């Protein structure tokens, strides 16, 4: 009788305790940079965790197994995040803010590296932590550098490619104007001419940056201030605006992300497609692809030669809160070694960052687009390397979208973009 009287409150207290323990994780940590964290644990060796978004091509697990077999006392645990870039970003932010020591080596998209470095979350890769970047493509190293310090190791790269129907257009266009003049061929066959990614999302920033950079303009200068009001930048955006106005970019092009454009191209309804190299495998092997043997790949057309593709890709970084940084550094070197890069290319169709691999005969045999991709990446211009990147990309997206749809003139769009980019760094 006595115990039953206290059973209910005890049970309730137990449930409460369990629920409160589920609210683990602290509130916001300190916001100032901690020089102390960067200098700590430089010689620590032990088990580490590697955090990356979804491993769609199953390249990471074999590599981690290989490392674990060779280093049984410094085992790596692979933590897989979601496959949505925004969610990966938010997950990393939450764990860095909580100073989680369990996130040792993290995979960061090229556009987040500056932001995380400026927040003091990434270990500078200098002195004891330095790695060899001499063989890597300069554009990729630029994305991993912030304030003249290397904060991450380039791991994979990505560049824009022009997919074209080689049965309708035997030689690919070398300049934008040439490509626009070939749109009559598309019209005569009743298909759309050119599409990229013009929906209002990060892909639009990529395409707008390519248009601006290919025409000789830039988006931000070295001081971080916007340079989009130059005549070259306006001319670049005007290319897209004019193409949409006269129908060379189809009306539904403003709703296209990567997949919609790929679908249209594979259905044979598109003559030229700007997309990432991943389309190659799918267009060649998809059951529903109507262009299996009739498509080719070329570098993006520019003003008077190859255009400036936007650089995609991922970098590997070490967290300042890691307790085993020496192990992390060795793991970094392993994951960016030539052998691993080759494995990424053959197994996952992920572009390597080591320049010499693009000329390697075995790789080229397996991935025939490698020479085209090398031209693309050699001429690539990274998107603005800014710690305020979310605000900068929003400024570009909103105004480029309005200009392309004709809601604003190009001049007005560039003026607004200029003000918005500059106010982002306030």
């Amino acid at each position, binding site marked *: 009788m006595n115990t039953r009287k206290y059973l209910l409150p005890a049970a309730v207290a137990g449930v409460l305790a369990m629920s409160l323990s589920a609210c683990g994780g602290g509130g916001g940590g300190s*916001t100032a940079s901690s020089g102390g964290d960067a200098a700590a644990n430089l010689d620590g060796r032990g088990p580490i965790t590697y955090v990356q978004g979804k491993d769609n091509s199953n390249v990471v697990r074999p590599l981690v197994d290989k490392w674990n077999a060779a280093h049984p006392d410094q085992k790596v645990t692979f933590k897989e995040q979601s496959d949505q870039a925004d969610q990966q970003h938010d997950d990393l932010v939450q764990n860095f803010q909580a100073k989680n020591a369990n996130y040792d080596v993290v995979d960061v998209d090229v556009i987040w590296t500056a932001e995380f470095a400026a927040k003091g979350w990434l270990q500078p890769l200098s002195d004891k932590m330095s790695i060899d970047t001499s063989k890597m493509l300069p554009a990729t190293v630029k994305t991993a550098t912030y304030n003249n310090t290397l904060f991450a190791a380039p791991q994979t790269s990505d560049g824009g490619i022009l997919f074209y129907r080689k049965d309708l257009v035997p030689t690919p266009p070398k300049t934008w104007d040439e490509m626009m003049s070939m749109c009559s061929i598309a019209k005569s066959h009743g298909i759309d001419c050119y599409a990229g990614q013009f929906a209002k999302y990060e892909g639009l920033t990529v395409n707008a940056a390519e248009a601006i950079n290919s025409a000789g303009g830039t988006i931000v200068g070295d001081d971080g201030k916007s340079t989009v009001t130059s005549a070259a930048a306006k001319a670049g955006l005007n290319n897209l605006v004019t193409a949409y106005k006269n129908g060379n970019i189809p009306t539904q092009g403003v709703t296209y992300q990567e997949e919609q454009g790929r679908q249209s191209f594979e259905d044979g309804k598109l003559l030229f497609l700007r997309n990432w190299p991943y389309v190659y495998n799918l267009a060649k092997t998809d059951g529903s692809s109507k262009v299996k043997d009739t498509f080719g790949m070329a570098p993006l057309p520019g003003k008077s030669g190859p255009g400036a593709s936007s650089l995609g890709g991922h970098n590997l970084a070490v967290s300042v809160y890691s307790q085993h940084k020496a192990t992390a550094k060795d793991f970094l070197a392993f994951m960016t070694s030539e052998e691993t890069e080759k494995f990424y290319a053959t197994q996952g169709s992920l572009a390597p960052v080591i320049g010499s691999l693009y000329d390697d005969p075995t790789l080229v045999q397996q991935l025939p687009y490698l020479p085209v991709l090398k031209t693309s990446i050699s001429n690539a211009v990274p998107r603005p390397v800014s710690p305020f990147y979310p605000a900068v990309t929003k400024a570009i997206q909103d105004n480029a979208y309005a200009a392309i749809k004709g809601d604003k003139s190009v001049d007005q769009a560039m003026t607004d973009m200029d003000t918005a980019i500059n106010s982002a760094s306030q």
Partner: protein
Amino acid sequence: MSTLAQPKRAPETPSPKPKKGQKEVGQDRAATSQGRWAFWLISPALVLLAVVIVYPVVNAIIMAFQKDQGLDPVTKVFVSGGPAGFDNFVHWLAQQCGSAACAPGTLGSQFWSAVGTTFFFTVVTVVLETVLGFWMAVIMARTFRGRSALRAAVLVPWAIPTAVTAKLWFFIFAFDGIANKLFGTAILWTGSEWPARWAIIISDVWKTTPFMALLILAGLQIIPAEVYEAAKVDGASAWQRFTQITLPLVKPALMVAVLFRVLDALRMYDLPAIMTQGSNGTTTLSILVVDQIRQGFNSAAALSTITFLIIFLVAFIFVRFLGANAVASATPKTKGQEK
């Protein structure tokens, strides 16, 4: 001389034996000990609610008065911004970025249009859902064969997670999707302003009408059938029965349902975020908040607080002036009738 003159009056509440020196012991003592018991039993839930609800809200309000991190020009690293007073709120309400007006392309320039869009969505979707929900509820209130199957089937749109619904309608409203094929049109549903808004309204109404229908159905079932019969006998037409009997008696349940829907619609996020990513004039306040979180927490906290105040104001108007009795019973309270 009967020994059974009066029936023995039973005490109103069971009471323990009266102790010495205690007056009218039974009720007081039971109430106090029950009161104490109740307090201890409720306190764990209260503590949990305080941690999960009160602490984040209070923390967000405190954060709203701090500046976002700024870039130290020398070390190029982010440092704490310090107190900001009302700057964050001015940034949003007056659309000021620093000393100048916010340029298009920044989040600050979208506050008032987001408020307008949110209210537009709320009013249109709630009106449509109420009308359609009422119609569905009236049908479901009748007795016919298969009524329970209909009631279960009607709930399916509400049961599907909103993200799935959004993707579904995204494909339906694609340029070469079913919507255009069926009507033979070439509308750029997710690419132009008004089509995008109507696309979102249609999918939201599809999803949430069952919810309204069920809440209104619950209200309809309270109305006793005799009232209708009496009205029929008196010669009231169907329309008169509807407006003079159904509407007034369903009003309490209806107002509660409308209040819930309005509060939900003011916080709409997933549908516009997935279908149009907030482009073409479909950015709601919640989308603005989530976008701002990636650019600066404290400003987002300020926007969140403003959203909270707007929704609180709307709810207050509903409860105070429109008589939505969310907590008490369906019958109106009158003094002196409390038990």
